[in-house]
């Protein structure tokens, strides 16, 4: 493998890791709301979260461009407050990956939260545990395998993100060119087959590892809360 190819792998892992880390608290909060909450518009929220799963990724990328571009409301606000910009930057690739991973993560976490026996939480409260302590020491540990499985799955999804990324932040080597975008570029170049083969092999290995880890963790939950 060439140094350039290593750089692509490194960038992909960085984008995936940042996307999943940023997504994790949001996904857990949403999963919690969907699993335990009772509020009007729950069905709509559920549908909105799942939208990136069924929407053409190009449309998701275009919507991100509208919202998080320099002129977009969210983009302008984030630039003004945190100095965070997304256009043609790896942060934009991470954002696109996060949005695409969100439905998968929420789904897995929601299943695992729903599988937690609430009678155990009641028992903890009769033993004097506050709601926060009950959440921390009973609910989260029992939901943890699903949370980890969802996170790993979201990471795998992030590594594979293509359509929304290329639409939103383009295909810039060293900045937004993750594995799938690099493979796409290599395919355009005559004689790029060997690079394509190597990058594709890495993609397969990374994704396979993530799926196996995710599935093993889901099995360890005892119930068949498979995320696939």
């Amino acid at each position: 493998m060439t140094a350039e190819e290593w750089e692509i792998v490194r960038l992909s892992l960085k984008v995936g890791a940042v996307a999943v880390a940023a997504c994790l608290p949001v996904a857990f909060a949403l999963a919690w709301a969907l699993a335990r909450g009772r509020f009007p518009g729950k069905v709509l929220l559920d549908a909105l979260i799942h939208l990136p799963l069924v929407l053409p990724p190009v449309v998701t990328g275009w919507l991100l461009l509208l919202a998080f571009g320099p002129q977009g409301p969210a983009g302008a606000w984030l630039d003004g407050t945190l100095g965070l910009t997304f256009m043609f930057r790896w942060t934009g690739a991470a954002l696109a990956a996060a949005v695409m991973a969100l439905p998968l993560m929420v789904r897995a976490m929601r299943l695992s939260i729903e599988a937690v026996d609430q009678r155990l939480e009641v028992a903890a409260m009769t033993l004097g545990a506050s709601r926060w302590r009950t959440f921390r020491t009973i609910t989260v540990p029992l939901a943890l395998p699903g949370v980890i499985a969802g996170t790993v799955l979201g990471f795998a999804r992030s590594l594979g993100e293509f359509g929304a990324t290329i639409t939103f932040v383009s295909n810039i080597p060293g900045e937004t060119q993750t594995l799938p975008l690099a493979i796409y570029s290599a395919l355009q170049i005559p004689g790029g087959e060997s690079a394509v083969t190597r990058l594709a092999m890495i993609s397969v290995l990374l994704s396979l590892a993530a799926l196996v880890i995710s599935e093993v963790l889901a099995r360890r939950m005892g119930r068949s809360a498979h995320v696939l």
Partner: protein
Amino acid sequence: MSFEVTVSRKLGDTHIACSFAAPPGLTALFGPSGAGKTSILNMVSGLLRPNQGRIAVGGEVLFDSAAGMDMPVQQRRSGYVFQDARLFPHLRVRANLAYGARHGGVMSQAEVVDFLGIAHLLHRWPRTLSGGEAQRVAIGRALLSNPRFLLMDEPLASLDRARREEVMRVIERLRDEMRLPILYVSHDRAEVERLAATIVEI
């Protein structure tokens, strides 16, 4: 008086109402399934809020709708033993026992472990315990939370005959040696007649 309970609560279509004042010892709530016995335990523990009424244990008021008093479940210090034990599956027996432990209890952990004969179980996971073992651990966990009183919801119902006898002896010793007020739910007349000083028919 140990338990002084006057409560009413509407749950869906059924209306649960009961009133009793029990002397020290074990008080049994006795009646057919679905009569609302568990709901009464839940109201005493603070898990279910009565529509109106008053609950006091050992003279201490836990709930009084007229005075707007409703002590949170965490502060009531009810040692609740559930029918299904409800041990935390991700914690070993030792950690389960320690979960609600408060200082100043009537017994130390070593004494409770000895009293219940569960020393050999401390390193085990709850899923590896028999029903009787799990129930004894659940009783231990409740005792270590330094309870003011014990609530027991059919603690023998899910056990076979031999295990029943084992847990029944533990409950008799709790009643006689610990002097803790116990509110005990059952639909088994023989069990209630053997254990209870007071029987409240629901």
